[in-house]
């Protein structure tokens, strides 16, 4: 009888041992030993963006564009004279959005075109602005063979304006978007500050307006890195 119960207990122990091994090994095999097909899903409007682990992504660029455009539009509410001035009428400012300059440490990759389009769309939606279609701007740059940064020489500016006017697209302001970054390193952690600057230059007077937005991001080799560098004790008072 005792031998039988001993046998039973041995079987139970063996069963438990094998069971535990299987339970431990199964997720490991499942996660590391199988190939999975990729799948996609639509991110709902109220869901937050993914945060890039190695570089800026939607969470950075969207915030930069929204903040800088809101500041710029807020400042530019006062109406100005249109290029084709008519007595007593105050029209929207005609904007020639030239380009997005990337002077940061990271490649913008496919975000560059998207940043341009997002800014262009927001300008178009603002009642005090009237942007020139990008295709006219590109055609004028191709026609004149001018670099975007060479438009400030008076002769170049005249040439560029003349080409756009020939196409029926006169403008009052040149708009440039510039992305810069600053990197601070501390052991295995890095903080990168992204600054998007929108610069609007009056081509008639040379006066300019400028607005910036900043997003700070921390990159860490370990999860603990975030808590070590950004905790309640490191908050600015």
């Amino acid at each position, binding site marked *: 009888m005792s031998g039988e119960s001993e046998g039973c207990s041995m079987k139970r122990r063996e069963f438990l041992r094998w069971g535990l091994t299987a339970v431990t090994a199964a997720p490991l095999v499942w996660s590391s*030993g199988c190939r999975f097909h990729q799948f996609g899903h639509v991110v709902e409007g109220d869901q937050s963006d993914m945060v890039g682990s190695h570089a800026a992504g939607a969470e950075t660029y969207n915030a930069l564009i929204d903040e800088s455009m809101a500041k710029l539009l807020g400042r530019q509410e006062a109406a100005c004279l249109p290029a084709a001035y008519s007595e007593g009428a105050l029209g929207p400012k005609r904007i020639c959005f030239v380009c997005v300059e990337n002077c940061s440490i990271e490649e913008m990759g*496919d975000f560059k075109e998207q940043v341009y389009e997002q800014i262009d769309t927001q300008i178009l939606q603002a009642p005090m602005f009237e942007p020139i279609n990008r295709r006219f701007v590109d055609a004028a*740059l191709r026609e004149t063979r*001018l670099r975007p940064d060479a438009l400030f020489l008076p002769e170049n500016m005249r040439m560029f304006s003349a080409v756009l006017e020939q196409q029926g697209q006169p403008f009052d302001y040149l708009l440039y978007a510039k992305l810069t970054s600053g990197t601070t390193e501390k052991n295995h952690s890095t903080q990168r500050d992204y600054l998007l600057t929108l610069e609007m230059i009056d081509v008639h007077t040379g006066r300019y307006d400028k607005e910036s937005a900043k997003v700070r991001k921390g990159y860490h080799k370990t999860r603990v890195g975030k808590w070590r560098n950004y905790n309640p004790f490191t908050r600015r008072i």
Partner: protein
Amino acid sequence: MAELQSVYAADMSGLPGKSASAQRLPTRVRVWAESGRNRSYCQVAVLFGLLLHGFFLAGCASHSHRVRDARMAYYQGDLEHAGELLRKAQKSHSGERDCLILDQAMVSLVGGDAAEAERLLREVRDRFDFLEQKSLGESALALMTDDTAVAYGGEDYEKVLIRALLAVCNLMHDGSDAIAYSLQVDQKQREILERAQETMPEEVKPAYRHVALGAYLRGILQEESLTHYDDASRSFGTVANWEPEFELVKYDLQRVQSGVHSARGHGVVYMLAMVGRGPSKEEEVAEATTVSLLIADRILTATGKHSLPPTIAPVKIPRVVVPHCTIDSVAIDVDGRPFGLTQTVTDVGRLAWQQCEASRNRRIATAVVRRTLKKAAIYSVKEMTGVESPLVNVAYDAAGVLWEATEKADTRGWTFLPAKFQVLRIELPVGVHRLSLRSAWHGQPVGPSYQADVEVIDGRNTYMLATFPDARLVGKILTSNAVNSRQ
């Protein structure tokens, strides 16, 4: 004989003489294996399995042998025959299908069907992305057999070159997706560099070269936009850093930093040349490893209860072979006047060799682990089935040797690549121009001349692609704005 019988008897009765490992086996298996008749069945079954495995795998040709004829046909310009051989091989060797499709894509591209080449390359790109995940089943099978049991997921440089060639193919027929492909080149290169930083030993990191062709294509596409000079400058800077011997990029860099794409009324022709015969992999015997294993197994055989299968079969690993090039560039004449020579933006041969060298130690280590496991498996089977008869022992050793001898080095790869990707930038006035191409050696034209007419568009890039594995052109001269081409 009497002694042998007593050992068997002791084994069967569970008295002293029963091996420790047999005692550790689960009860049911132990009881089954200890039965004299079952032991014989077990021995015969294991031997039969090993011999069958050896019978089926011994003498199988490697990938490099299989594509040899197709490669020769390709280099001789017989693209139809090369394509036929590749299609036939795809049907019979599914494990090499992706490599063969890559070669097929080269045949299509060189033959003038850039759209088909793009479709094939896209297929393999997606498959290689999928195969970046590890499969435990395949890894286990590879330990039992060899590395060819694992689905081929491409070398790092191949993954980048697929995307670069996708951009080239797309530029040759409509160019609508070329920017997207060039962005993918950047992304893949970045992924590989990040992975290399984490996994590569410090001593091989400097030798781990980068594919500058991808960054260069991105640079020229960005420059053509006339608004993204900053991105173009970044890309050309990267190329200058990765390929310091590529002199032309210094002018490109200077131009995008302070000049313009082209003068008014001018456009640019980019002559892309695939020069020389590219690298392939062949089996190599790792001599030092083989000798070390030989010594180790002799020591274990002398001290252990059972003998190990002798290390007669050498340990095999792949090595990259780059054929000797008889030309080093392509000389270009424009409208009858000499213009210049193409320059190397990516040396595929050197890239393949260096990446293979970087992973050589890992491959040897895998081969040693596999060999050790095989020897251990034979030893365990001898222990389990209680082999005592010298004849059965020899039969097991022979089966073990056969099992080891069936190992093959993984020689799969993209074998139709050129030795070098070269480029020349030609700024020309708008209109139709005639370009003559001749293979060259040390600056002197050595082969026949091939002509193609090209239309230059104001402020735009026009792309041409020619393949010179030797002195003679293979296939057609592809042009994004072709007028016609003839010899």
